[in-house]
C-alpha cells in the first residue's frame, strides 16, 4: 500500500474541515476523489503532503508514518502535489519553472525534454514568463513541473480545471499514460464521469467525511452518485 490515511482530521484556525477521513491508495492504482464544493478534498490533499498539519489521525506513505514532516520533505518521498489553482512561479520563465520542479531530480536536464515533448505548447512558450501564460497553459505547466520530480505518487487537485475539452482529453490520457509508466495517482476532480472512467477505485466526500467508496465502475452506475455528481452530458441535453 503506497498511501494510507487513517481517521484524519484537519482544518484552518479553529475551523475543522476534514472530520476523520480514512482512505488508502495501492501502488499502480488510479484513485478518484469526488465531492462537492467545499467538501474538504483540497484540504485532505494538503494534509497528505504536509502543507496542512493534521490535528488528529495518521498518514502512512510507503508504510512509513508521515504527516508531521514539513511539506518540502514530501518530494523526497516521491509524493508530489499539483495544487489547486496552478501555483506556478509567476515571475520565472517556463523553463525555470520546470527546473524547479526537478529540484531533487539529478536528471532534470534530460527530463525537461521529455516533458516538453509531452506538452508541445509549453515548448513554444519556453522562455515566456509563466505569469503571462493563459489559464490552460499554466495548468499544463503545473502538471509538467510536478512530473519533473519523477513522482511515485502524484496527487492531482482538479487538473482539468480551465482546460479546453481537447486538452481535458489529453490530460486524462496523460494520466493514464503516467499510470502505465508506474506512477500511482490520487485524482481529485469535478469531472466525475471522466474520473470514474479512468479510475480503478474512487471515494466520494461530503462535508469533510467519506460517504461512499468502491470500484469506479460500480460508482459510475450508483444512482446516488449519478444524481449528485454526474449530471447530463451535453449531447444528452441537446438532443
Amino acid at each position, binding site marked *: 500500500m503506497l498511501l494510507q490515511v487513517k481517521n484524519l482530521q484537519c482544518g*484552518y484556525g479553529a*475551523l475543522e474541515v476534514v472530520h476523520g477521513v480514512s482512505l488508502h491508495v495501492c501502488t499502480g492504482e488510479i484513485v478518484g476523489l*469526488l*465531492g*462537492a*464544493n*467545499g*467538501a474538504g478534498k*483540497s484540504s485532505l490533499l494538503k494534509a497528505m503532503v504536509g502543507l496542512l498539519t493534521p490535528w488528529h489521525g495518521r498518514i502512512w506513505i510507503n508504510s512509513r508514518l508521515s504527516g508531521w514532516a514539513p511539506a518540502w520533505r514530501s518530494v523526497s518521498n516521491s509524493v508530489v502535489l499539483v495544487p*489547486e*489553482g496552478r501555483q506556478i512561479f509567476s515571475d520565472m520563465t517556463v523553463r525555470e519553472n520546470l527546473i524547479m520542479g526537478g529540484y531533487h531530480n539529478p536528471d532534470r536536464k534530460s527530463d525537461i525534454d521529455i516533458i516538453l515533448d509531452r506538452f508541445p*505548447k509549453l515548448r513554444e512558450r519556453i522562455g515566456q514568463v509563466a505569469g*503571462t*501564460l*493563459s*489559464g*490552460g*497553459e499554466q*495548468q*499544463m505547466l503545473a502538471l509538467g513541473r510536478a512530473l519533473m520530480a519523477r513522482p511515485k505518487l502524484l496527487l492531482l487537485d*482538479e487538473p482539468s*480545471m*480551465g*482546460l*479546453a*475539452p*481537447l*486538452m*481535458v*482529453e489529453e490530460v*486524462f*490520457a496523460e494520466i*493514464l499514460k503516467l*499510470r*502505465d509508466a508506474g506512477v500511482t495517482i490520487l485524482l481529485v476532480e*469535478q*469531472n*466525475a*464521469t*471522466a474520473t470514474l*472512467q*479512468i479510475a480503478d477505485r474512487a471515494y466520494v466526500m461530503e462535508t469533510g467525511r467519506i460517504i461512499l467508496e468502491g470500484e469506479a465502475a460500480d460508482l*459510475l*452506475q450508483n444512482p446516488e452518485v*449519478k*444524481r*449528485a*455528481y*454526474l*449530471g*447530463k*452530458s*451535453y*449531447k*444528452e*441535453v*441537446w438532443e
Partner: protein
Amino acid sequence: MKLLEVLNARRSFGGLVAVDQVSFSVFSGQIKAMIGPNGAGKTTLFNIISGLLPTETGKILFKGKNIHRLKPFQIAHAGISRTFQNPSLFLKMSVLENVMVGRHSRTRWGFIGCGLRFPGQIREEKHIQEAALEQIAYVGLEHLADSPAGSLGFGQRRMVELARALATEPELLLLDEPASGLNPKETEDLGLLIRKIRDTGVTILLVEHDMSLVMDISDDVLVLHNGSVIAEGTPSAVQDDQKVISVYLGKGLAHAAPGEKSSMRLRRP
C-alpha cells in the same frame, strides 16, 4: 438591438498577437458563449471589453457608444460587469462585504458624507446591505454571508463573484469560466441560474470550457483560435464544424455520455 459591438479588436504581447482583428456583436437578451482552445485569447478579449487592457486597433461599442478609451470603473458604471477566470474576491472581507462592494457604482456618498454619517448616507448604507443580501440569496449562499471570503472553497468563490457582479446591476455580464471547479451537478444548477439572470433582462457573454453548459444555455457561440474568430453560429452548427472539432472539441471524452463505448478506449486493456 446590438448591445455590444466589438470591431477589429487587436492586442499583442511582445511578438505574440493574442487577439487579432476580432469583430462580433452581442444582442440584447442573448446568452452568447465564447469558446476556444487554451490561449486562444478569450480572457484577453474580456480584458479589452472591460477596459483592463486597451485595444490596439478598432472600436468597442456599447449601446452604440465607443467605450474603448474608458477606464474599467467607468465601464462598470456604463453597465458592463464581469467575473474573473481566477476568482479574485477581496479575500480579507466577508462575503457580504464583497457583494456590497459590487453596489459601489450604483451608490454615491463620498469621503465627507461617510465620515460624518449623514442621514442620507446611513439610509444608503442600509439599502446597499439589503441589496447585497438579496444577491447572495439569489446565488444560494445566505448561510455564508458573514464568513470571510478567504475561507471559501473554490466553487463557492465563483458564486460570490457572480453575486458581486450582479450587484452592479449590469446590462451586460461577462462570465469567465464560471463553471470551472464546479461538478456536473453544480454546473447544471449554474446553467439554470444563468438562464434566470438572463430572464431578468441581463445580457450574458460567457467563456466556458464545459460544453455541457455551453450547449445547454447559449443562444449563440463564437469560436476563437489563435486570436481570431474561426466560427460563429448556433451551438449545434458550431459543434459539428470540423475546424472546431479538430482544434477544440476533439471527439473523445467531450462527446461521451456516461458509459458510452467511445470513451472506454481510455480504460486500461
